[in-house]
């Protein structure tokens, strides 16, 4: 098997697995940059996956080939709405943000499986007929060598994810909103003194994280699993959280980390068909993202520090 063949298998597969992680990790970045820890990302992905699949099954006849995209919008909206619960608890009611995130995760699984049984009278949905499918991107796939590796047999969603990561970078670092977002996450009292509405910014950030997490779940379900059951989202949200940290709370870093974790995930699945990896137990690839994240936090791979006010509720007038 030539290097060319290997790359043209590994890279599209990496992009496929990375796309949901990129979206969700970006969501986490927005939330944590504003000072709200969101370990409910897993639950938000569950809600997104559930919404996308149900919407897809219900409206496949109406929207035709556009169905998966419209379903993604639905997943985004419902994910955003669901994250309001986390926002209310952790911003308005000053709940422990980690506990509230745990509640979001438990609630998302409970609600979505309850509704699946309510609607379909069984534990999992049917397989969707109109998922995201592999495409050769027009024009770009005709570029010699690069076209075959990067733009053939791939998914549009992966490219959308990368574009959104650059947009997120622009928003967080180049716009007034981004400056406010970061200041609220570093020193909310100073931001408040300067007339920034801390509560409003944090609400927006958490809702953005819900919307992006919802999209992440929607992509995962519509391109990888094609149905919804209790096992559809199993740890991708936490892996996205890891990607956010490994990327040092930076949108492009999160994207890079998500691509790398997507690479590890896809190798653990297709590795056995590649010549030089077939003898390596895939357990190493499976645990690589988590081990690397711990190492990054510890400082062995450049220390990663969270925004200063992350996890601390802001109470006006408190020093």
């Amino acid at each position, binding site marked *: 098997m030539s290097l060319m063949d290997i790359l043209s298998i590994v890279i599209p597969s990496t992009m496929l697995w990375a796309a949901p992680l990129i979206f969700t990790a970006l969501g986490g970045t927005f939330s944590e940059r504003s000072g709200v820890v969101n370990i409910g990302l897993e639950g938000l992905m569950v809600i997104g996956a559930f919404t996308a699949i149900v919407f897809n099954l219900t409206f496949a006849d109406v929207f035709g080939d556009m169905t998966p995209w419209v379903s993604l919008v639905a997943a985004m909206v419902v994910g955003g709405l669901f994250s309001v619960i986390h926002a209310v608890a952790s911003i308005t009611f000053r709940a422990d943000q980690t506990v509230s995130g745990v509640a979001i995760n438990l609630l998302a699984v409970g609600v979505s499986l309850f509704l699946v049984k309510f609607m379909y009278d069984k534990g999992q949905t049917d397989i969707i007929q109109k998922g995201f499918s592999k495409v050769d991107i027009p024009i770009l796939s005709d570029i010699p060598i690069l076209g075959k590796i990067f733009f053939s047999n791939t998914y549009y969603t992966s490219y959308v994810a990368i574009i959104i990561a650059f947009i997120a970078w622009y928003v967080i670092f180049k716009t007034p909103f981004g400056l406010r977002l970061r200041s609220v996450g570093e020193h909310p009292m100073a931001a408040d003194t300067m007339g920034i509405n801390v509560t409003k910014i944090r609400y927006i950030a958490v809702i953005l994280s819900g919307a992006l997490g919802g999209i992440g779940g929607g992509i995962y379900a519509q391109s990888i699993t094609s149905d919804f059951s209790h096992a559809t989202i199993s740890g991708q949200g936490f892996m996205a959280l890891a990607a956010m940290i490994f990327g040092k709370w930076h949108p492009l870093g999160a994207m890079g980390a998500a691509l790398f974790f997507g690479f590890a995930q896809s190798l653990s699945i297709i590795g056995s068909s590649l010549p030089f990896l077939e003898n390596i137990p895939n*357990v190493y690839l499976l*645990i690589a993202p988590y081990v690397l994240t711990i190492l990054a936090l510890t400082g062995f791979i450049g220390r990663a520090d969270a925004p200063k006010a992350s996890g601390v509720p802001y109470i006006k007038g408190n020093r």
Partner: protein
Amino acid sequence: MSSRMKNIIVPILAVLLGIIVGTIIMLITGYDAGAAFIALWDGAFGDIYYTGETIRQVTPYILAGLAVGFAFKTGLFNIGVEGQLIVGWLAAVWVGVAFELPKFIHLPLAVLAAAAAGALWAFIPGLLKAKFRVHEVIVTIMMNYIALHVANYIIRTVLSEKSDRTADVFPSASLRSPFLEGLTDYSRLHWGIIVALICVFIMWFILEKTSRGYELKAVGFNQHASEYAGMSVKSNIILSMVISGAFAGLAGAMEGLGTFGYASIRGGFTGVGFDGIAVALLGGNTPIGIILAAVLFGSLKVGALNMPLEAGVPNELVDIIIALIVFFVAASYMIRIFIDRIGKKGAK
């Protein structure tokens, strides 16, 4: 109203609110809420068999709750109980299948191996927290997944010939009890509940009756003050995580040596570790509170399995109620304000 009264009323209100919202969900979706709750009760206590199953479920919940609660007392959030439970489960079964020894050596050895494995798994985040000030929440989450994949790998390659489960543990390492099973109409009730209750006593004793426990709590209240008073914050953080992990590992031993008697490849988590967070929160991190909360969640979980059969209501409704209870306890600020308002009106 005294803060002590509030500490009792908040969890009770949280449970009531959870049940009320659960009822509303059933009314909206057109399920028969009354029948659902009767089915839930019958499924948990309606028959001696179900009662046995409920106590069996309560056993790991108590231990997982102790694990989370103990770390909370030192100001640490051990969200890695799930991973520590998995390695404890694996270690217990490993000892259970590897040797054949007299029961009075083998069983304690297997149980202790589980505690040691859990403690080791929690030692790492404790050490990283103490040495490098790395937040324990993230590290323990990552350790959960490492535990899951490593345990699966060991089960597949070391403890079996590419099979998806290990052999059963030798009877000399089993917590199973024909006596308890006979007493409860052949439920899977085992001796683990005794271990769990002993651990409740141990937690109470360490925290309330030893100077080490006093230090652990002091560090939880105020790290700087403890440091100033001459306590070692670092060693207390590590110790707290290690003890917490040992409790979590024991919860794994309950499953490995009692309920199942083997370890198998898992696609995802058991959920016991995360439910342990709910148990500890609702129980206010106190030994008695944890027992009561574990009984509540254990009976909800076991009773729920009867809801689809008897009332046609999906058992996930109970998961929703548990999540809501966690949510309401977490957002207890809301409930406390509410109580204050009521209290003021009463005073007028």
